């Protein structure tokens, strides 16, 4: 039973090769295509969709989602989840405005450090007390929510005298909003951290196979703590940006970001099982959500249907962006 002639066998593998090439098209390309199609449709519906003013609007909305999403992404990549972002954002929002009244600019570093500390605590509840991150962060989220109400039971408004400090975020330089510049900076920092540093890359290894990582000497405790710190810092930054933008703190500001941050991450194609995905995915996720949110209003979709359409679009989006070659099972 010898093998068949060479001519025969090579012709048999032709379709196989074509298939191989097709499957290698990165999912990211589909996602970008989706964005382009959406933008095209919206622009068709209303020319103003592509106006500089509106693009700026979309960018500012996506910016917040991106910043909290980048953080959330870190915990998801490492194989966990962070549900405390809601409570934390509420807490940081009021803390920021209350402290900015007293210490001015120094409220920025103070809030970031507080956020990092919360992340460190979240991490340690997971890694030392061994409570699954889902429960641990659900719990700390509740505690932070109460803390937010303790700092200020009602929204606090920043006095006009302090607008100068808050405009560090709100202002613009050469017609580009500082918020966008800062967000871009944060994106680059997270990107470099995750793709080009040993600690950041460890997040992917731990998320992909924690037993192997442990046995290979990766400090899994430190890595998971780091992921939680990155998450909380992202949420804190987003809360600060929001509070600056609204010139006030709001103890109920965070709630909607629990689900929205996860959605931004997952819509971009990062797997909840951990290990696959990344900052670019989150960027796309945030953009898809922002473009939809904005576009539906710009073309005047009936408010009754917006939620439904958004639901359908995120399903379609994940259908396109999710890289199924990297996960053996869809959970």
């Amino acid at each position, binding site marked *: 039973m010898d*093998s*068949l002639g060479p001519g025969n066998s090579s012709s048999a593998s032709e379709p196989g090769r074509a298939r191989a090439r097709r499957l290698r098209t990165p999912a990211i390309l589909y996602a970008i295509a989706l964005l382009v199609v959406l933008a095209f449709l919206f622009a068709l519906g209303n020319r103003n969709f592509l106006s500089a003013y509106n693009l700026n609007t979309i960018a500012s909305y996506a910016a917040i989602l991106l910043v909290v999403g980048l953080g959330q992404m870190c915990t998801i990549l490492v194989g966990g989840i962070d549900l405390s972002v809601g409570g934390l954002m509420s807490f940081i929002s009021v803390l920021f405005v209350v402290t900015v009244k007293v210490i001015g600019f120094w409220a920025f570093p103070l809030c970031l450090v507080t956020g990092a500390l919360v992340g460190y605590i979240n991490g340690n509840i997971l890694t030392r007390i061994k409570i699954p991150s889902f429960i641990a962060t659900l719990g700390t989220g509740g505690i932070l929510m109460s803390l937010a109400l303790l700092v200020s039971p009602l929204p606090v408004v920043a006095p006009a005298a302090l607008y100068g400090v808050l405009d560090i975020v709100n202002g613009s330089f050469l017609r580009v909003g500082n918020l966008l510049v800062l967000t871009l900076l944060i994106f680059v920092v997270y990107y470099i951290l995750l793709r080009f*540093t040993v600690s950041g890359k460890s997040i*992917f*290894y731990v998320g992909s196979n924690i037993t192997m990582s442990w046995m290979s*000497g990766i400090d899994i405790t430190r890595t998971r703590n780091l992921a939680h710190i990155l998450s909380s810092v992202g949420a804190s930054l987003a809360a600060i940006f929001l509070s600056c933008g609204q010139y006030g703190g709001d103890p109920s500001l965070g709630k909607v970001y629990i689900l929205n941050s996860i959605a931004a991450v997952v819509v971009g194609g990062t797997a909840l099982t951990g*290990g696959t995905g990344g900052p670019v995915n989150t960027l796309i996720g945030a953009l898809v959500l922002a473009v939809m949110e904005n576009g539906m209003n710009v073309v005047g979709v009936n408010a009754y249907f917006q939620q439904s359409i958004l639901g359908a679009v995120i399903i379609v989006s994940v259908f396109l962006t999710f890289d199924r070659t990297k996960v053996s099972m869809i959970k």
Partner: protein
Amino acid sequence: MTTEKKEPMFELRGITKSYPGVVALDAVDFVVSPNEIIGLVGENGAGKSTLMKILIGLVQPDAGTLTLRGRSVTLKDPADAMRYGIGMVFQDGSLVPNLSIMENLFLCHEIGFRKFGFLSRRAMRETARGMLERVMVSEDQDTRIAEVTPAVRQMVEIARLLWLSRLYGQANPILILDEPTTVLTEGERDTLFAILQSIKKEASIILISHRLQEVVENSDRIVILKDGRNVTEMPASGAQITDIEQQMVGHAFTADRYLEDEQIVPDDEEKVLEVQGLAKRGAFEPISFFVRKGEIVSLVGLVGSGKEEVCRCVNGLAKADAGTVILGGKKLTPGSPSDAVASGQGHIPIDRRSEGLALGMTVAENVNLLVLARLRSGLLVSPARERNNATQWIEECRIKTPSAGTLCANLSGGNQQKTVIAKWLSSQVKLLVLDHPTRGVDVGAKDDIYRLVRKLARQGIGMLVMCDTLEEDLGLGNRMLVMKDGRLVGELDCPPKRKPSPKDVIGLIV
């Protein structure tokens, strides 16, 4: 052997299957006759497992025809194949970890145990006990699979296959065993082959193995695959192992398989690893030994002899109750693998899929895991250096992969093993613990691994090995430590060309 004259049971013609970047099978023909054992051999990645997955409907071929008992068939899924009387023991195990032995035994085939729609536990228990006795598994059938040894799992899989072949009452079922012996001891192996020979009377068996010896001894016909194509087939009687190797790999092998010529004489003074009075209750009694620079020490003993636990304590995966592990003059923190790794200890685990690799990541990412810090330029890891390091080690270890960016999950078992080895070799270790380094690895790759092991020894790396076979232990090692019932019972010197014979060692082991 008169197999040639029989009507074929199952005929596969022109089977072609490609994956992104690879053509796994290229117009392969494969015929199964009744009552025969076919030995299917080939290099890692030759396409053996893929062909078998097509045989049981887990993978659909891109092209080709399947003819079963004279009728053309398409197999939707494994359950479908099972109804036609085709079953398989998978290379990487197929038992669900969170279910019990019994539940796994009957998974998907519980029909016989139904009473008013509910499953009768008693009936299941009784049948299970009978089946387990047949393969000599003494574990309680309610133990979860996650808690039993690989050997027990393997036997449970075989028991499952036996039971299924009986259940559907298909005349002459086809049983596929993909590398069933890698985790078995010699004794268990003998049991397995005895069972196979006895059921051959009513079944066809396809046996995949990289241990050509057992293939030649136990099969009737040998089929060789190379690069996804049929190379040749031959009757097993009278087949020469060297000949098969030649056909599989394309070149002949030297007689000095374990490169004993290159075995170095370690310097007495420089000890890489010193284990002093290490003890763990219930696992092993106080044990002291050392590994010198460039020395290969093989650790042998039966299952339960405690050698594995000793290694886990040395690796920091488990905490010993007493004693110290000193690596390169530094006392290791007990129970800290990261300290062990940071101090220069490497560990190639027995279970590559769950302990050795990040399957969802690329070959390059896996290879570079341990050396990222070294691949930095400035503060950041340099992608160019990453690429270079990965390519270098892929070549060095001859990992057969379409590219460095291929996902590990898509490599063949043997190439996955080579990836794990490459990962540790690329990091500069002082001591390497090799737990069955050649498990599931083809002859060519084995050669590569032996070569690498010798090279490392020359570089002064000490090694502690536990091998698949006693021959390998003897061939590779400078010295052999023998454990029995948690105690060190013997130490043998294994100088090149004057190695002790396996018989000498077995006396100590059992």
